[in-house]
């Protein structure tokens, strides 16, 4: 009795999985997959990818679809939640690549998962657009060459030294002007995990390249009371305190810092001016914010503004990382354009086309291109919040440095 | 032949003196009884001798070897086995499994191994080999405790209040079992409060008070000793 019960249940499970799509690539469409953390710890980043991609897919399909070699193909979007769990992410990757036979995958933003995912997309010749720190180490000229394991993988965000470089320069310029004194001492707060370690390496060097003396304070990722660390920071007499990664935690630490009057000016990574205004935050000290790539709360160009209007109108959440969606939006359009120009959906030809292209998207005033390591370059927007206000911003778009600063491995 | 020889054994816990220089000798043919008021150190004596506690001073010699400070399991394997005041068993295991554990881990050399089932029959638990130990009533647990100690192939058995909680007829059965042990090659040293039991089976009685030996000798002599009577009944007016 029990045996039969159990058998039936497991068989039902197996059959229900069978009921999912398991056929070869259909003629009627180009399949695009998204794997992201739509629930779980990384949800603030994860939600944005799907929203950006689906907006682009809708626009392309509304315009008739992708025109390849005289035929028109609609884009099929398959969206999977990885629940911030590596096993689910891998399973979703397998499902999309091996069961659903997608042509391209967008995601994830969670570091380990992306790397494990490339082991699935690479052998299946599925293009993967993903952006996170761990990729920087493994994207080399050899690994992205034809036949290499990462030939079909593209990093959606610039090398960290570039983002750090433009952010550091922009922040120091804006704060220096507002505070009215030369800035010498900086303290950087970063979470002691993979992303934090990676980011801080480059940002510290970028600040030093801009003439700062830097002290680095690492906190356990689950910290909620920053007072002991902030007190230590204060004893170092900083002109500026920089909170790097992540946006949600930063907004917990920052008020504590202002209360303790730790520094003359602050930088908050991962907090968009839009979030600042939404939550009606106010600070007596000058605060700078940066966005990757552009701030949805203070869009620097009419194209960006129009994008964010459409993005939020489609129902997307106004989160700290909503600006990340813009990247994925551009990359979907770029992929479609590459297929049209190459005249085929064949992955090798499309990759070769992308490598040759310069794409004018919304993200950047100048056309985007992928370098020899499949990494992209674009500027970072930095904004200063006028002290005492919730919605008065002064923003500038900072171009990245061409060369990494001394001691930086250009990762 | 003296098997267990305790000389000047002291045990202190912080400032409290639990054993105050005890001397004791037990042979493999003996049945020796230890009595005394509560708190006189009887169980502590067993604990130190069998390695559950370390001695503070003095010596414990078993078959000529100094065992003071050795681990409990090592001492048990040398043939010096004790039972506990509480009815101890391995509750979730069957009676037979309980016995097999003692059989496997008990003394290695010397005595011929006895099949556990025979021991269970000896204590009157035959037919109950497959029962779960934890579900048995108190009286049977006591029998099991004794069977386990025997299954560990002891040469000397230290029984800690084996009659506690038993009624008269059960106590009589227990006495019958204990009387037979020296004839089977197992000496016995037991603690108890049941004076009838003690006088009927012990050849020699030792009286402890406040961790010290205050009398030793034949049961009828010891129990009529004035000091002993004072300790139990209070000083004469």
């Amino acid at each position, binding site marked *: 009795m029990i045996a039969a019960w159990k058998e039936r249940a497991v068989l039902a499970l197996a059959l229900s999985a069978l009921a999912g799509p398991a056929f070869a690539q259909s003629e009627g469409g180009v399949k695009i997959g998204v794997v992201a953390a739509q629930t779980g710890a990384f949800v603030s980043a994860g939600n944005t990818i799907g929203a950006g991609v689906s907006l682009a897919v809708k626009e392309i399909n509304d315009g008739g679809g992708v025109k390849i070699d005289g035929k028109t193909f609609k884009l099929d979007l398959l969206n999977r939640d990885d629940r911030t769990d590596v096993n689910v992410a891998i399973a979703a990757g397998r499902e999309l690549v091996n069961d659903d036979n997608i042509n391209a995958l967008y995601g994830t933003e969670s570091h380990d998962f992306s790397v494990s995912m490339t082991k699935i997309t690479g052998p299946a010749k599925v293009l993967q657009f993903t952006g996170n720190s761990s990729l920087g180490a493994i994207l080399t000229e050899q690994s992205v060459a034809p036949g290499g394991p990462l030939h079909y993988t593209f990093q959606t965000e610039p090398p960290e030294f570039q983002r750090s470089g433009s952010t550091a320069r922009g922040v120091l310029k804006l704060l220096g002007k507002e505070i009215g004194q030369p800035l010498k001492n900086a303290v950087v707060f970063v979470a002691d995990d*993979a992303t934090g370690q990676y980011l801080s390496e480059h940002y510290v060097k970028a600040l030093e390249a801009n003439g700062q003396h830097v002290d680095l304070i690492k906190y356990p990722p689950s910290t909620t009371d920053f007072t002991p660390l902030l007190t230590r920071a204060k004893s170092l007499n900083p002109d500026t305190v920089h909170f790097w990664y992540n946006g949600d935690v930063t907004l917990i630490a920052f008020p504590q810092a202002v209360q303790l009057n730790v520094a003359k000016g602050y930088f908050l990574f991962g907090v968009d001016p839009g979030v600042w205004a939404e939550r009606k935050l106010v600070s007596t000290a000058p605060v700078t914010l940066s966005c990757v790539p552009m701030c949805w709360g203070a869009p620097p160009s009419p194209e960006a503004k129009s994008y964010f209007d459409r993005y939020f109108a489609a129902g997307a959440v106004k989160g700290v990382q909503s600006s990340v969606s813009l990247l994925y939006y551009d990359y979907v359009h770029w992929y479609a354009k590459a297929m049209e120009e190459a005249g085929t959906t064949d992955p090798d030809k499309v990759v070769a086309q992308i490598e040759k292209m310069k794409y004018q998207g919304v993200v950047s005033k100048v056309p985007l291109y992928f370098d020899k390591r499949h990494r992209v370059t674009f500027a970072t927007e930095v904004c200063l919040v006028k002290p005492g206000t919730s919605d008065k911003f002064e923003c500038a778009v900072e171009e990245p440095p061409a060369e990494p600063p001394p001691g930086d491995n250009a990762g | 032949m003296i098997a267990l020889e305790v000389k000047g054994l002291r045990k202190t816990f912080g400032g409290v003196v639990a054993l105050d220089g005890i001397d004791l000798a037990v042979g493999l043919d003996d049945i020796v009884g230890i009595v005394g008021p509560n708190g006189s150190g009887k169980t502590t004596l067993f604990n130190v001798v069998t390695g559950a506690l370390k001695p503070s001073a003095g010596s414990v010699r078993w078959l000529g070897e100094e065992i003071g400070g050795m681990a409990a399991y090592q001492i048990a394997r040398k043939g010096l086995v*004790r039972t*506990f005041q509480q009815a101890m068993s391995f*509750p979730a295991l069957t009676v037979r499994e309980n016995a097999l554990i003692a059989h496997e881990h008990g003394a290695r050399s010397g005595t011929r191994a006895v099949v556990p089932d025979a021991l269970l029959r000896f204590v009157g638990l035959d037919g109950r080999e497959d029962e*779960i130990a*934890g579900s048995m009533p108190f009286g049977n647990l006591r029998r099991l405790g004794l069977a386990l100690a025997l299954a560990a192939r002891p040469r000397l058995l230290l029984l800690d209040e084996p009659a506690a909680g038993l009624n008269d007829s059960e106590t009589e059965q227990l006495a019958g079992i204990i009387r037979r042990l020296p004839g089977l090659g197992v000496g016995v040293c037991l603690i108890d409060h049941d004076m009838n039991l003690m006088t009927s089976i012990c050849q020699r009685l030792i009286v402890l008070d406040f961790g010290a030996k205050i009398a030793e000798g034949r049961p009828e002599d010891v129990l009529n000793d004035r000091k002993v009577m004072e300790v139990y009944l209070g000083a004469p007016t």
Partner: protein
Amino acid sequence: MDLAKTESLDLPQAEPAKGGSVGAPRLTWMERAIVPAGVFLLLIGLPWLHPGYRLLSLAVSTGVNTIALCGLAILFGQAGIMSVGHAALMGVGAYAGAILARDLDMSFWAALPCAALLAAAVAGLVGLPSLRVGGHHFVIITFALCGLFTIVLTNGGAFTGAATGLDIAPIGTVFGVNFSKLQNLYLLAAAFVLASIGLMRLVMTSSYGRTLRSIRENETLAAALGVNVGLHKIVAFMISGAFAGVAGLVQVYFLQHISPDLYGAFPSVYIALMVMLGGPRMLLGPLMGAFIVTFLPEVLNLDPIDARIAYGVGLILVILLLPGGVMAGLAHLYLSCRRCVVRS
């Protein structure tokens, strides 16, 4: 002592036992064999049922956990010692595999004994000072082990890959079998699962298992009867560590990328949860526990927060109502149904 000399003693019968027996329900040999046989057939035959890549991938994840859980079942189910450090021991196996592949060009098969032995050695080192303290303290120490392990990995520089972690190439083709195909990798994992369950059963039914159970049931009595409790506890911990090390090795070759977060305190708590949910003393307990935790959120499409609430509630229910875990509960259910059928 020589009982051959005894005449039979005329002792009145001992009192009859009260109430029902505690412990595993009594099933016939056939009944005991049929469910495991069915499960094992399903396990091996899964790829031929065309389950789809998603299910197969989740099945491999389940298998990895099951291997480690069999070790934990020996430690907790048999010896009664709870550890929430088993993710760290899996990590030892995983990182050993990755580092040996990178620095010494060792294949999966060559790394297998190394991963098991290294994890067992780490367990021994941790167990030596800590197993002599009581069970509650030991649990906390194993919890701290995970934290320590994560810190060591994160600060290990290029050797451990620091916070970014390490990559590994797939197993490739061995004896004509291409393990880059998910179906073959699954069968490899399934083979390890079956071997783990088999080994676990071997321990459970052997006299060694009985010795461990005696430690679980009454440590003081065990020592008083000659059981070297201290040694056996450490050895049991080391054995469970070896299982975890193997699980970690299979995992690293499955994910092909590992990092410190995978082996922290949180995953360890999940592993302990799995073994308690499934049933730490049952043959299929480890598999059931891993299955529930992997597939419950999958089938019900649960948000991770809801899933954790479900596990917490499930754990409380198991502790209060089903101490033997879900497998024991199913067995009891079957027994009551059988009694109903027999009666009617």
